[in-house]
């Protein structure tokens, strides 16, 4: 290790220094770090929007913001969290980890990797900047449904361009990941020996290439409807607003799996490490992931049960949706079977991973409930749906991101994260998360609609509870910032194999990982 460290320091000072180093870098580790920092900043921005929403909903009536601005907040919270926080964070993990895990020296197209990242701040400025233009940001909901999205002010145009740019960034990132995984694996690393995180990302990357262009097409149609006299979604010109929903959700449902499959991958790395057993049913995990991806193209209309679809259509999409529970169930059972009779320890990453399984599965079950067409017609656009997708996106994607961050921080920084702070972060998050989102199930079943700044008096108690939980949850995320800053600054030195049961090529390089790794491809046995 001592022999490598000076190398690392030496290498790091090649080329430009200071800010230019970060702007021009083509190193997968630098770019991964920038992705992660960017997504955390966007996470905090989206979080501030969420807390403003919860402050307004703390009690009935209008206290904090005007309804127009409230609608902008719910819309932008969704867009920022989906496209700014969750997706870039997973790409950051991919950048850092995939070359390390498959024994490649860098991503396949290092320069393109740099472009993929630097498009994102541009998109973020456009998106956040739209709050400050006349008419404010788009308020059409993150789904940007026509005809509302055809009518908004220029904030909508900025959101459309931001989506275009983020789409290009995602597609370039996805192509890079596919090529890296297919062509740059170390000798001996066959596809079925690859770490599961790489598998889930490979499949996610294919999904991204397949559906991000469709979203780009949908928002382009909105743009031409707005300014160039087309009538894709305007009934008057022979178009149909319901068609927007079909095209959007053709992207939107695979998008949901784009946000959760890499999370499955992270958890599948962590559970075996702390159970000190190989992953149970590796091959079935690969097949389950592929099945979820393929099925995701045939379920989109379950978001549209109330649009007047024929009963046959409702039945098809209802059964297809329920079918997805099978491969997802395979995964959950495999994780549990991996833990079964393992030598379990509960360091911070493991706590997050187990918490993920527990809470994500609850979100999965409410998803099954929403899949049933007659129930969905009842809960459509209520807080039940809000509770459902926050259980899978916050407790699913976000918790897995935290698990992964604590797991690989030793490799990134060379220091072990502080267990006390990490555990405090976990327990605060999971408790406040449930205080925030569990009551929303009751609110939804009682009929409280989403995206409305005011509500009837009978919803007051649960809303107050949710708002208190939300502020607790929001503040708890600052603990993560403390944990990361502390870990970067110092702490217990991490060994190359930072966790006792950790397996894989990334644990064969020193901690922190030198600037250049695997210049000579390792041989994987």
């Amino acid at each position, binding site marked *: 290790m001592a022999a490598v460290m000076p190398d690392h320091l030496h290498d790091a000072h090649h080329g430009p220094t200071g800010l230019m180093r970060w702007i021009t870098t083509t190193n997968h580790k630098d770019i991964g770090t920038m992705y992660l920092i960017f997504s955390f900043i966007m996470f905090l921005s989206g979080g501030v929007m969420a807390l403003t929403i919860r402050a307004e909903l703390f009690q009935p009536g209008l206290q904090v913001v005007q309804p*127009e601005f409230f609608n902008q907040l719910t819309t932008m919270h969704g867009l920022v969290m989906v496209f700014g926080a969750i997706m870039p964070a997973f790409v950051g993990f991919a950048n850092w980890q995939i070359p390390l895990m498959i024994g490649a020296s860098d991503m*396949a*197209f290092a320069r393109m990797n740099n472009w993929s990242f630097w498009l994102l701040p541009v998109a973020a400025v456009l998106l956040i900047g739209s709050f400050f233009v*006349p*008419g*404010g940001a788009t308020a059409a909901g993150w789904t940007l449904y026509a005809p509302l999205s*055809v*009518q*908004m*002010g*220029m904030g909508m145009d900025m959101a459309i361009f931001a989506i275009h740019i983020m789409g290009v960034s995602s*597609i370039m990132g*996805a*192509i890079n990941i*596919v*090529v890296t995984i*297919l*062509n*740059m694996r170390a000798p001996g690393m066959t596809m079925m020996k690859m770490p599961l995180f790489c598998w889930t990302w490979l499949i996610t990357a294919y999904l991204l*290439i*397949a*559906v*991000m*262009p*469709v*979203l*780009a*097409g*949908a928002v382009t*149609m909105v743009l031409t409807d*707005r*300014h*160039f*006299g*087309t*009538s*894709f979604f*305007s*009934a*008057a*010109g*022979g178009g*149909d607003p319901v*068609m927007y929903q*079909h*095209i959007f959700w*053709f992207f939107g449902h695979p998008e949901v799996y784009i946000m959760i499959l890499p999370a499955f991958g992270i958890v599948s790395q962590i559970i075996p490490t702390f159970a000190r057993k190989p992953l149970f049913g590796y091959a079935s995990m690969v097949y389950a992931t592929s099945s979820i991806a393929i099925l995701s193209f045939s379920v989109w209309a379950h978001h549209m049960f109330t649009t007047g679809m*024929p009963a046959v259509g409702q039945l098809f999409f209802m059964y297809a949706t329920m079918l997805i529970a099978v491969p997802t169930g395979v995964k959950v059972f495999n994780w549990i079977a991996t833990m079964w009779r393992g030598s379990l320890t509960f360091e911070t990453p493991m706590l997050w991973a187990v918490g993920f399984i527990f809470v994500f599965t609850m979100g999965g079950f409410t998803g099954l409930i929403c899949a049933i067409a007659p129930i969905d017609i009842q809960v459509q656009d209520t807080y039940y749906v809000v509770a459902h997708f926050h259980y899978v996106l916050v407790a699913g994607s976000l918790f897995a991101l935290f698990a992964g961050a604590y797991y690989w921080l030793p490799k990134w920084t060379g220091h072990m994260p502080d267990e006390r702070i990490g555990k405090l972060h976990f327990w605060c998050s999971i408790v406040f998360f449930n205080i925030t989102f569990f009551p929303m199930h009751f609110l939804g079943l009682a009929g409280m609609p989403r995206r409305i700044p005011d509500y009837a008096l009978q919803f007051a108690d649960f809303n107050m509870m949710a708002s208190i939980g939300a502020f607790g949850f929001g503040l708890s995320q600052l603990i993560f910032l403390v944990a990361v800053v502390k870990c970067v600054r110092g702490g217990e030195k991490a060994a190359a194999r930072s966790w006792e049961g950790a397996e894989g090529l990334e644990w064969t390089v020193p901690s922190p990982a030198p600037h250049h790794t695997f210049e000579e491809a390792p041989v994987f046995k």
Partner: protein
Amino acid sequence: MSHPTPVAAENRRLLVRLGIAAVVMFGFGFLLVPFYEKICEVTGINNLLKPDTVANTQVDITRTITVQFDANTHDLPWRFRPLQTHVKVHPGELVTVVYEVSNTRNEPVTGQAVPSYGPQLAGQFFRKLECFCFSKQTLAAGEKRTMPVAFVVDPALPADVTTITLSYTFFEVAGRRIADDAAGRRAGAAS
């Protein structure tokens, strides 16, 4: 650094293929539009622009339905009204009513009327054999026009429905200029 190796060449090939896949999927998004229209046509879900057919012409004189007429315009400088507020019809009976529309702008304007029904359920029992809503209407500057609607109320109409409201809204077609004006007005009003 970048001397072409077999791997680099292979990477480039895959890059091109995946890039093409992304471009094809962008096109696929637009391809969904005619596909969607075809499905609607085949399944008969969305036949706003086609005359209905009437299978049963037996007039049920035991029932009398009140049909009310309503007319609206959306961001359009037209005066649009029905010449009768309501008629009483027997199910199965062929009835013709007349709407009048006039263009108040001093240039030609094209509009499209979109019907809706109250109660919504009644829509599927309201068969229009002739309607100005089946095609776009272009009115010259200051032109006034009367337009008939011929319809039959299907005798299968549920017994509890005694009143049907037929409401038309005229929208401007390909309203680039007016849509921009409207967006500008809204943006201006909000700021």
